[in-house]
């Protein structure tokens, strides 16, 4: 399949006219309306989280707050209730951090070595395993959930941190391995051959030659995994265990709990707090984020 070219090659449309023609005005209007539609939910989230409950009951969701209050934010962070526990979303935040850091590191380490072996040290059957690995990325998770519960239970890690870390490592493997394999395969083979002639072995070449050259692809991989794992809900619900409930799961429990009066401002503050990590990653990483998407689409 044709590789997707990076966005940086520049547009191919007509050269812009000096004056604003009706056609250009149309284009800009459509784009602006679309942009408004995409921004609106973020705007509504933010202003709702800054209003007091009386103001929410009176006003409409699009009007900016008359009196700005940060109370909902502190309530969401430190005292919002899930069931009987009212310790706020910070519990879920730290749980997510605890899941995130080892999962990102382990999954990327394993996938980078896999990709390196597949690109430079092909062995009999390696391509077949790789094809099935890629195919596995399309199998709905629901198909593998129950057997994985049994496996993790037998290993004694069901409902623990190592359990959820293993699950994230497994399901991150197809796309990450593809990413690294393609990257290592794109490096000049002379480099690898020269190192071989000099007598360097598998690990020596990996650590001394490949790794120093692959910083950008590690950044792409880290961004993909941080957003992917942070946003996970299904695996968190099943494999993390009640002590390690990730932020998304706790957020859903807080907002969709049927008890008590709904505090919409606290709910929206909690929602922003949960979305903040991937959003910050997105806004600060720009190009790398898009590169990760393209990598996923080049081949499935």
């Amino acid at each position, binding site marked *: 399949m044709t590789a997707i070219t990076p966005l940086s090659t520049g547009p191919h*449309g007509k050269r*812009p006219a000096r004056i604003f023609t009706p056609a250009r005005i149309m*284009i800009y209007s459509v*784009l602006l309306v679309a942009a408004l539609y*995409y921004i609106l939910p973020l705007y509504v989230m933010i202003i709702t989280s800054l209003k007091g409950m009386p103001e929410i009951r009176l006003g409409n969701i699009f009007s900016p707050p008359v009196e700005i209050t940060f109370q909902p934010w502190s309530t969401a962070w430190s005292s919002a209730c899930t069931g009987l526990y009212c310790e706020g979303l910070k519990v879920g935040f730290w749980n997510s951090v605890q899941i995130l850091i080892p999962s990102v590191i382990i999954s990327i380490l394993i996938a980078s070595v896999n990709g390196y072996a597949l690109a430079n040290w092909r062995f009999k059957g390696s391509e077949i*395993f790789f094809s099935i690995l890629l195919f596995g990325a399309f199998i709905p998770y629901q198909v593998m959930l129950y057997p994985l519960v049994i496996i993790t239970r037998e290993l004694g890690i069901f409902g623990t941190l190592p359990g959820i870390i293993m699950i994230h490592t497994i399901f991150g493997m197809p796309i990450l391995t593809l990413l690294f394999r393609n990257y290592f395969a794109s490096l000049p083979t002379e480099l690898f051959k020269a190192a071989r002639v000099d007598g360097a072995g598998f690990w020596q070449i990996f650590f001394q030659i490949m790794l120093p050259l692959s910083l950008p692809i590690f950044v792409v991989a880290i961004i993909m995994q941080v957003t992917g794992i942070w946003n996970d809900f299904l695996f968190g619900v099943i494999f993390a265990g009640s002590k390690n409930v990730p932020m998304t799961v706790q957020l859903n429990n807080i907002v969709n709990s049927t008890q008590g009066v709904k505090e919409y401002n606290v709910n929206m503050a909690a929602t922003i707090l949960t979305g903040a990590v991937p959003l910050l990653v997105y806004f600060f990483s720009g190009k790398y984020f898009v590169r990760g998407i393209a990598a996923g*689409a080049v081949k*499935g």
Partner: protein
Amino acid sequence: MSETVRPNSLFKNLNAKVAAIPMIATVLIVFIGCTLWTALISFTSSRTLPELTFVGFDQYARLFNTPRWNISAINLGIFGVFTLVFSTVIGFVLAALLDQKIRFEGAFRTIFLYPYALSFIVTGLVWQWILTPTYGIQRVVRDLGFETFTFSILNDQRFAIYAIVIAGLWQGTGLVMALMLAGLRGIDEDIWKASRVDGIPVWKTYLFIVIPMMRPVFITTIVLISTGIVRVYDLVVALTGGGPGNASEVPAKYVYEFMFRRANLGQGLAASTIMLTTVLIIVIPWALMEYRGEKRK
């Protein structure tokens, strides 16, 4: 490895094989083993625990006689068709507009794509708030003076699934836009020059020249979206919880409920095997096509 060891094909390239153990184990145990296990046990009468009393297609027959499953399957169809059509069309149109040498292209791109960085839970909860009849869009329009205006799709059994479509489109069209834009940038500049020389209108060039040329991009995008559609779960949990009643249930949620809440393993596994079959119907023709395309090169 020392050279004095007698060559043995199993030990040849040993380091690479050791390094690939996690991948090999994942492929053999998880992707092949777990999938086969699920398909196999779906033909048994398992309830709380897996057992090996085979009952043929009984679980499947029961599945398709369960209203809740049928609602889930139909909902997936509705959600699938609308999401596929609208995200492809909107994604392509946005990409084509962005490809007209416009100012602030980067800013527009960032805005269209940011929802994709958010989780389905966050997406679902925001839209739940916007669509809440008491405070959301319905209230806003009524306050403007249209007192009888009704927009309460979240509380309406007939329309709840469309709320999920709306939220899903908001989250996912940015991805399609990014893929399409990359595809458009891959089109040779000369095509545009030639069509301009021939006086072909821009829209015709898109429709009859550019889109056919972008076939591979469209196919990849559609396969990616489709496999995502079959999996839809978190969004429904966060936005409607499957309600009102069972009105917005989806297969992935059915699987979860029957496996982990109702201790009816056979049903859960049969339902998940149907999900797998659906994905295979989408992916296998595509994989074969890709494979053949590669061979021809």
